[in-house]
């Protein structure tokens, strides 16, 4: 009897232990499943992005910025299809358009990732995957050297002088380099392998030329610290920041002195390559250039920043001309503040014969109003690239078939 009792107790204990172990097993398994779901939710189990030219970050950002009003908003379409004549390279706000050969280089504003796009094939490739948030400008020194301006807040800005290291994967390489001094306020390219920057130093500003390798030379000091600097073949053009309600002047910077180029003009603006100017009269722009030292007015009613000269045929000028110009005296100021936008049509002008022709009306032909700025052109004169300031997106236009 006693033995039976002992057997029953032992069997009961074993059964209870097994049941407890089974319960523990199911409890632990449930906890593991929950943890796995949490990890997945937090992205710990996600596979590394690969195999795409623009990367998964690009697709995620594209979903944030894509606009239903524009037909080619799908980034995958831009990545694989031969682009149309007017091609939106990315739906993500971008800066720093620059052609090297026939390929367009640019950087995305939210990430600072650097890309190159081929307008012939539509291929877009990420060159740098180094995160530099809130980029507001890029100045190119060479194909792999650039200065990135970051603006994290309204009054903070920093400049990162970097070099793109060759990518080892399809996700893009790294951007390595260093930040320029804290109080830099302007950067401009200077030839093939150097750039100039202006830095506030006490009550004045110092202008320093720096090579890619880091060698520096102070070239000028000045009490003013608001200049727009454009490189030209003969040096630099220094322009006071434009305003339609204040007179400004442009100067040629030569042998460390300023020589007046355009004096006391309202809304004085200069094109990216320093060879086309505009001023405003009662807010309406007048475009002009210099031929043999004499001013020549051009027939387009547009800002100089919307124009570029064909490097292959210097008598040919391309301009984005607003279909209607904002009727306000402070047109330049309001445009820079983002309070007015225009819908532009592309024209070409032969400055010798003064004959102009319509190249493309984006709104008329594609139903897309584009407010053009930051214009650049490929060396063969076949492609124009620009930023649409309404969406801040980069576009390419093939000007000849």
């Amino acid at each position, binding site marked *: 009897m006693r033995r039976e009792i002992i057997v029953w107790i032992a069997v009961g204990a074993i059964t209870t232990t097994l049941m407890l172990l089974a319960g523990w097993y199911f409890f632990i398994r449930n906890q593991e499943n929950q943890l796995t779901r949490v990890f997945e939710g937090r992205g710990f189990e996600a596979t590394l992005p690969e195999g795409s030219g623009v990367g998964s970050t690009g697709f995620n950002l594209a979903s944030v910025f894509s606009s239903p009003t524009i037909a080619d908003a799908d980034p995958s379409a831009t990545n694989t299809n031969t682009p149309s004549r007017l091609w939106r390279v990315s739906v993500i706000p971008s800066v720093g358009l620059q052609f090297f050969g026939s390929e367009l280089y640019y950087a995305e*504003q939210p990430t600072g990732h650097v890309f190159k796009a081929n307008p012939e094939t539509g291929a877009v490739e990420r060159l740098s995957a180094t995160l530099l948030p809130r980029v*507001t400008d890029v100045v190119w020194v060479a194909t792999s050297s650039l200065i990135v301006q970051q*603006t994290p807040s*309204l*009054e903070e*800005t920093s400049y990162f002088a970097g070099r793109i290291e060759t990518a080892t994967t399809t996700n893009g390489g790294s951007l390595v380099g260093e930040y320029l001094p804290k109080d830099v306020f302007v950067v401009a390219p200077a030839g093939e392998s150097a750039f100039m920057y202006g830095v506030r130093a006490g009550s004045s500003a110092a202008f320093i030329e720096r090579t890619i390798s880091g060698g520096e030379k102070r070239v000028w000091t000045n009490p*003013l610290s608001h200049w727009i600097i454009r490189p030209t073949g003969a040096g630099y053009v220094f322009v006071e920041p434009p305003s339609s309600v204040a007179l400004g002047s442009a100067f040629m910077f030569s042998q460390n002195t300023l020589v007046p180029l355009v004096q006391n003009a309202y809304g004085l603006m200069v094109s990216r390559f320093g060879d086309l100017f505009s001023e405003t009269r009662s807010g309406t722009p007048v475009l002009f250039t210099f031929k043999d030292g004499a001013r020549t007015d051009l027939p387009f009613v547009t800002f100089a920043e919307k124009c570029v000269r064909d490097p292959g045929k210097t008598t040919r000028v391309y301009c984005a001309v607003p279909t209607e110009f904002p009727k306000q005296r402070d047109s330049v100021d309001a445009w820079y503040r983002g309070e007015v936008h225009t819908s532009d049509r592309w024209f070409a002008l032969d400055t010798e014969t003064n004959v102009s022709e319509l190249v493309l009306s984006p709104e008329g032909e594609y139903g897309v109003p584009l407010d053009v700025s930051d214009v650049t052109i490929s060396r063969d004169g076949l492609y124009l690239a620009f930023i649409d300031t309404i969406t801040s997106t980069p576009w390419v236009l093939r000007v000849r078939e």
Partner: protein
Amino acid sequence: MSRILFVLLLLIPWSISAFSFPPLAVENPIQVTLTPTTPKPGDTVILQASSHIVDLDRSVLAWRINGAVVKGGVGETQVHAVMGVLGEPLTIQLVTESFEKNVYENMFQVYPANVVIAWDANTYAPVFFKGRSLPSPGATVTAYAVTQFATETTIIEPQALMYEWSLDGKTLPGGSGIGKSSATFTMPEFPGTYQLRVVVQTTDGKIESHAAAQLTSQSPLLSLYRDTPLLGVVRTSSLLWDPRINDAEATIAVVPYYASITTVKDKKLSYAWKFDEKPFQHDPNDPNRITLLLGDGRARPRAAVAIQHRDHILQTADHAWTINVNQEAAAANNPFLRQFDL
């Protein structure tokens, strides 16, 4: 004795006269004026001869510019000339034979020179703003004179020139002297247009030029922008241009252009926000931004903000904006309302 006294009395006035005044000289009664008075290189100048004594309309005038006769004849009192390049003086010679057959000669040189004023107003604009910071009442402005001065052999450095700065006719304190190529001053506290002027000359006064700039001070100007996590302040598109918002929650930032501050958080600037006409409490540490919940059915809420500068009473501005909320899109983008297919 009386004779001696008479002779002395006659001599005294002569001796006083000889002591007090230089010997009398026959002055040229013909003046030649130049318009503009301080020409730049390449300027066309008008040379005008005039006289209160000689009747020039009946006189024969012969003009030589840089040695060459350019005009001559009876009553030819005006001639045009073009200034040369920097460092190349214009030599003007005028020989006049009056109706009375008196001959007078005027000869002088004018050096072309140039001054241009460039200036910065130390008022607020965000770093991404490519336009000009405009002066507001009481704001600090720095001006710089770009000079082009040269003789035939030497370019005269800006440090070797004399400058005299004035604002609306009043000399700027401490802003004048040799080498004072820049001046920093405060704009008057009342809005208006003021003329900044600088007169520059060589220390010997031989070459002179001047320049003026109109400075219009105005009240600060407010513009409203979306502030997004990815881009920060959306600089290229103000809500003044496109007031549409497609999100249930939006942070908007006001930018007080041209206020005398260095940062939007400057305690010298106070902000008062209103939302749908009711005061809206903002974060005192982040006064220029507010975050609004918009997906609650209000299609066109109204945001208003007023600013006031503590030190400059006329640096004030207010503005109201109607925001256009796309409720359908806002609801679709609201993570707390969105229906997920799980």
